[in-house]
């Protein structure tokens, strides 16, 4: 090893790292195979692309050089961190550029074709990162140090491996989903007119932490059901108390095994108005139909068209709302009104896990209802990873 570890480093931070070595090897092998098929000599996960690095190492912060010829990766980590997957990473402190360049050279990549994860937005990961997630100064210096190597985007190489979940990942997602359900129970138990909205927010986060979830921002609204554009809070709401007809639209995220799942549940303080019932019923139907349509091999374009056209038969409106679950910024993200573009041609695979939360709305768009949670794609379509009853929760 050319790199010399620094004398001083910060305190080791412990993160969940309980996937098996079988799972590690599955991930490494799947990435290698895809990269080799694309003609790459290695996959490089540089400083900045923390989610892909965590996927490949289970470390809090790392950089990875994974040769496609079957050799194990060189992993750079900080703060003295190591785990069962990566027993001897190259240790660094705050300096990342030099060890990354040395790792590529030690792996013999001076004249190689190097695939860089996180360089650009991917089709199924880093989907909201228009220009990827790579640190400029460090990456530019690495390129300068390896002038004869070629560097290409390989976000989708890692991305499409992340996109299909293994049995171990599926179990973690299921557990995460149960945490999100528990948090929704807490919301429903506490929500009352007059309650400080920040206190409600705090109690839900407390519940998730007690259950073992890593932090993910809770998003809630708390305006009147009559509000057309309710304010969405991703931090504790300041200066707000729940009203007598508050509609709490909640997006509750939970993370277990580094995998993020979300649950969506509207809670109304008061009785559900009669005029809302057909909209809620329509949403139930499109949710369930969508599960049946969500079979392996179906294109997202076909799913979008069927969902978006479903409501018209009832004189109402429906729209797709779906996003991938995983290590973070997973895709595809399909939202009502957005153009799916290239995502239309993507096919659904067995082992995909999505947050499935289609929208139903009255014809005039005044009433909009979204409900859902994590679903896993099997041979017969989507299967919810949760057991919550459909509908608007009414706290009368």
């Amino acid at each position, binding site marked *: 090893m050319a790199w010399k570890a620094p004398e*001083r*480093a*910060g*305190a*080791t*931070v*412990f*993160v*969940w790292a309980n996937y098996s070595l079988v799972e590690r090897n599955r991930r490494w092998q799947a990435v290698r195979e895809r990269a080799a098929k694309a003609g790459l000599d290695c996959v490089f996960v540089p*400083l*900045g692309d*923390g*989610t892909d690095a965590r996927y490949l190492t289970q470390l*809090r*912060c790392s950089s990875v050089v994974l040769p496609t010829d079957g050799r194990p990766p060189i992993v750079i980590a*900080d703060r003295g961190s190591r785990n069962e997957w990566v027993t001897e990473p190259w240790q660094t*402190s*705050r*300096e*990342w550029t030099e060890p990354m360049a040395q790792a590529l050279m030690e792996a013999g990549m001076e004249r190689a074709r190097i695939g860089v994860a*996180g*360089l*650009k937005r991917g089709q199924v990961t880093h989907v909201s*990162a*228009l*220009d*990827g*997630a*790579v*640190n*400029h*100064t*460090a*990456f*530019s*210096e690495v390129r300068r140090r390896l002038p004869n190597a070629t560097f290409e985007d390989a976000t989708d190489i890692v991305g499409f491996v992340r996109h299909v979940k293994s049995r171990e990942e599926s179990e973690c997602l299921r557990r995460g989903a149960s945490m999100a359900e528990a948090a929704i129970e807490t919301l429903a138990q506490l929500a009352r007119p007059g309650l*400080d*909205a*920040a*206190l409600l*927010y*705090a*109690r839900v*986060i*407390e*519940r998730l*932490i*007690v*259950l*073992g*979830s890593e*932090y993910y*921002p809770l998003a809630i609204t708390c305006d009147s059901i009559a509000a057309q554009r309710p304010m969405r809070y991703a*931090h*504790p*709401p*300041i*200066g*707000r*108390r729940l009203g007598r007809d508050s509609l709490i639209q909640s997006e509750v995220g939970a993370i277990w095994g580094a995998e993020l799942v979300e649950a969506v549940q509207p809670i109304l303080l008061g009785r559900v108005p009669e005029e809302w019932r057909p909209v809620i019923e329509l949403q139930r139907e499109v949710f369930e139909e969508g599960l049946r349509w969500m079979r392996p091999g179906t294109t997202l374009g076909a799913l979008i068209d069927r969902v978006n056209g479903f409501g018209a038969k009832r004189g109402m409106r429906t729209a797709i709302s779906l996003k991938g679950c995983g290590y973070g910024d997973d895709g595809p993200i399909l939202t009502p009104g957005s153009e799916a573009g290239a995502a239309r041609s993507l096919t659904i695979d067995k082992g995909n896990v999505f947050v499935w939360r289609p929208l139903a709305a009255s014809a005039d768009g005044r009433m909009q209802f979204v409900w859902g949670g994590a679903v896993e794609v099997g041979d017969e379509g989507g299967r919810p990873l949760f057991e919550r009853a459909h509908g608007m929760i009414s706290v009368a």
Partner: protein
Amino acid sequence: MEAAADITWQGYSLAERDRRWRAVQDNGARAGFDCILVPHCVDGKNLHLSLEQARGTRSDSRYLTQMENGAVILPTDGRPPTVVNENGAGNSWLTEVRPAGDSWGKAMAGALIDARMERARIGVSGLRRGQVTHGRAIAGVINHSSYAEVLRRLPNAQFEDATDVVGYARYVKGDEEIACLRRGAAIAAAGIDEMIKVARPGVEEAILYAAVMRRMLELGSEYYPLALYTGPVGSNRLPRFEDGPVGRRLQPGHRIHNEVDAVWGGLVAQEQQGIILGPIPQEWKPVIELQRDLFYAGLEFMKPGLLLGELADFINGFGAKRGMRSLTLMHGRGCGDDGPLLTPQDRGERVRDVRLKKGNVFVWKPIAYSADGKIEYSWGGCVLVTEKGGEQLVRRTPGMVSITG
């Protein structure tokens, strides 16, 4: 402390916005730049060098815009900035914002060209670590693909690091910022009170963690992970957790160390308090006493004009007089990853010539060690530099809390 629901503060004023913009413009003009560019930066979850990155990577843009993710082009000739964000949505500080569209790089380059910067000298904040901001990010915080696109589209402009141009504006807090940090420090102190209330042998550490976070959130803090260290009092290095620890319970004789941060007005305050589940061991008492004296001596010494090197030498030599050891541990407080950074890891050689200024806010938590280095104790919180020295933003007394009940 008033409940979050009863708070009427509506955010920073336009005067505070103008103060920040002008300070950056003045620093930028003095350095000979035509404009300051705060480019699109990597998000803190992905560039997770430390807890500070969660809010630190995009801190310059937040400082200038109050937006979570934006790019800023601020000409130094007094023109207002052009701002690019994800969707073009404005706020009370900026009503006109450009959407990034399908490329941050293209949008930033377009804004620079519209500001007539094709052949300009452009100062770029976040390219490298600075003296008083981005101290943990040696390679800076900028997103590669978008910035490379800017360089490609403006081949005749000159781009140079200007991290310190924005950094030194952030370094001195305005009155509104000090008020926010004061409330943040009070929230963090309430989090510590909750920790003392809940911490008992047998308690699940995740429950302790959750209770502290709940207390701070209900007082209106944004979520900023508690850093929790727990283990037997005799252990020199305790494991550090930044999420609720899973499968661990507090035990008799355990020591709890922490960094309790609260975010108010977008600024990160921090308080720290050692706790022991049992009586304080005799051999710890002189170390704790030394730490208390270090803390107060440092406050007295911390006057505007002092060089950080002078402060570090004073503190680092303080313990020897008692046959023990001491080390400076401090860093700035603000939008995230604030410096200057003096820690056991970063001894401050880079920032010895940085002067303290009135209006600086630091987390001040010097470390005292026994002579053999086996016992180490740090206690502290936010302090404001005033003409009379350092002033605690929330009144607390140095020491270790012993829970024996």
